[in-house]
């Protein structure tokens, strides 16, 4: 069987969304959809699973919080804190617990720092975005005003063309 790639270009996101639903109901697999902006409900229509970006951010945030806590514990209390104890303004550091309120701001900042940056890096990594990468979109107009659907058809593609025509795309 010879395979063919069909590109269906739409100029309205509502028609695109409708077509996706029609094709999915006929159990035709849509390879990819390129759009100039996030189309609301498209991920559901395409049957995507929920993205796990938020979960990664939570994990990275926990790592950041622990890192911040350990860093402060090492510098103020245990390691360096023992070798070079600091007593500024008569406020020595005896235990982590006693000085905890003063450590909150930096532990918070470390949480945000780690969660924000590591999630962004994960996002770049998962989307294969990096300086020097080239676009995979078959048509440059998909960043302007056109929506492109990529369908792989096996065998006769006329039926598919008719189906798409009937759904108002050109």
């Amino acid at each position, binding site marked *: 069987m010879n395979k063919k790639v069909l590109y269906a270009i739409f100029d309205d996101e509502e028609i695109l969304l409708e077509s996706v639903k029609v094709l999915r109901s006929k159990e035709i697999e849509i390879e990819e959809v390129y759009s100039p*902006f996030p189309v609301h409900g498209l991920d559901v229509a395409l049957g995507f699973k929920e993205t796990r970006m938020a979960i990664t951010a939570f994990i990275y945030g926990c790592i950041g919080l622990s890192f911040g806590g350990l860093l402060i514990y090492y510098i103020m209390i245990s390691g360096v804190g023992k070798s070079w104890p600091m007593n500024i303004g008569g406020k020595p550091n005896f235990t982590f617990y006693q000085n905890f309120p003063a450590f909150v701001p930096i532990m918070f*900042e470390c949480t945000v720092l780690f969660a924000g940056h590591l999630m962004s890096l994960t996002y770049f990594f998962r989307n294969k975005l990096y300086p020097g990468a080239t676009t995979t979109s078959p048509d440059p107009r998909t960043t302007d005003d056109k929506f492109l659907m990529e369908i792989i058809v096996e065998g006769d593609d006329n039926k598919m063309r008719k189906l798409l025509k009937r759904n108002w795309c050109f």
Partner: protein
Amino acid sequence: MHKESEIRDPLILGNKTYHDITRDIARPVEGKANKYWWILFGLSVFLFLWGIGCMAYTIGTGIGAWGLNKTVNWAWDITNFVWWIGIGHAGTLISAVLLLFRQKWRMAINRSAEAMTIFGVVQAGLFPLIHMGRPWLAYWVFPFPNEYGPLWQNFNSPLLWDVFAISTYLTVSTVFWYIGLIPDFAMIRDRMSKTISPMKKKLYTLLAFGWSGRAKHWQRFEEVSLVLAGLATPLVFSVHSIVSMDFATSVIPGWHTTIFPPYFVLGALFSGFAMVETLLIIMRKVVNMEAYITIKHIEYMNVIILFTGSLVGTAYITELFMAWYSGVAFEQYAFLNRATGPYWWAYAAMMSCNVIIPQLYWIKSIRTSFIATFILSIFVNIGMWFERFVIIVTSLHRDFLPSSWTMFSPTFIDIGIFLGTIGFFFTLFLMYARTFPVVAQAELKTILKSSGSEYKNKTHE
């Protein structure tokens, strides 16, 4: 699809299509700069260079080049620092807090507001850097394994909290900004295939990170934006709270105040929105964004300015009340001296610019006028600078020992560095306005059908 009430004014004017939005946003990048841009740019670069000269002189001779003395040992440096950090707050508020509240009007202005944030924080960072005296040792503020003996940070100090807060704020804001920019850089890259020089095309290809707009990528994009907004919201409140603790954790009358964190955060949002208005009212004309940055956007911001301005006014009065109510003579004198002492004119400038003048925004015709808003935003910018000056200098200049009471006057160098940062800020912003997509066009396209004036009229019929 998202639906919106017909009574609401449209956020995109004129009969725009998706392609029109693309073309309008890409035009300043593709076109040539006009005469006014070059005049402003020349002026900004001149100020910037003057500032560099003053900074170099300060580093060469020492902090003695400033007008500081033994009593007033903190003045314009920290005033300018807090002023710039405050200006930096509106960008994150617009892009993060308003995203969480699903305010659609933020889409036309968030890009420029965030650019302003980043450039503002860069200016703010310069002041502690210069004040260190030996800026090449600036990395000492970060904890790193070393063998210098007791060179370790004091994590109890709000100044170190500042280091962490501001570096986190700067880098996270930049990443947030850039993730939003990628689809728009891709748009410019894809337009450039025909006419633009290959060098420029290469640059935008590099900047676009190979974005192609796949459905899965957009799904992740939306989630990442939402989570970053969720992270940036407490971050923006923490940054200025921590800046306020530089003062509030000390025992100087006038600084030792528990209302400082919310008071400073509100003041920062207030001054940040004023600076956004100053910049956007000029920018919408210079790069022809009148259809996207409309009077409705300006009115929404004016309402926020009115609200935060009134709260700042409440904070000023609360401070006075608490000083009287505390029964502490030093505290009472600090505030009496602030309002009626030798710096009464600074206090009066602060009160009139921040509390009285913004009340004019109750009047609808002022709130919905570009010229009135521009003038009032300048007043707020000036007033907020004076607020920091009043807090810092008037609390210090008459300390516990009357024999060491003194006045502060800035030197040529103080003024030069401040003007230099203004020049640097505008240099960066003007370069940004010519090379970056100044409106988040991908996001804007999502509201065209619900908030575009043409579509609104159609649904009305």
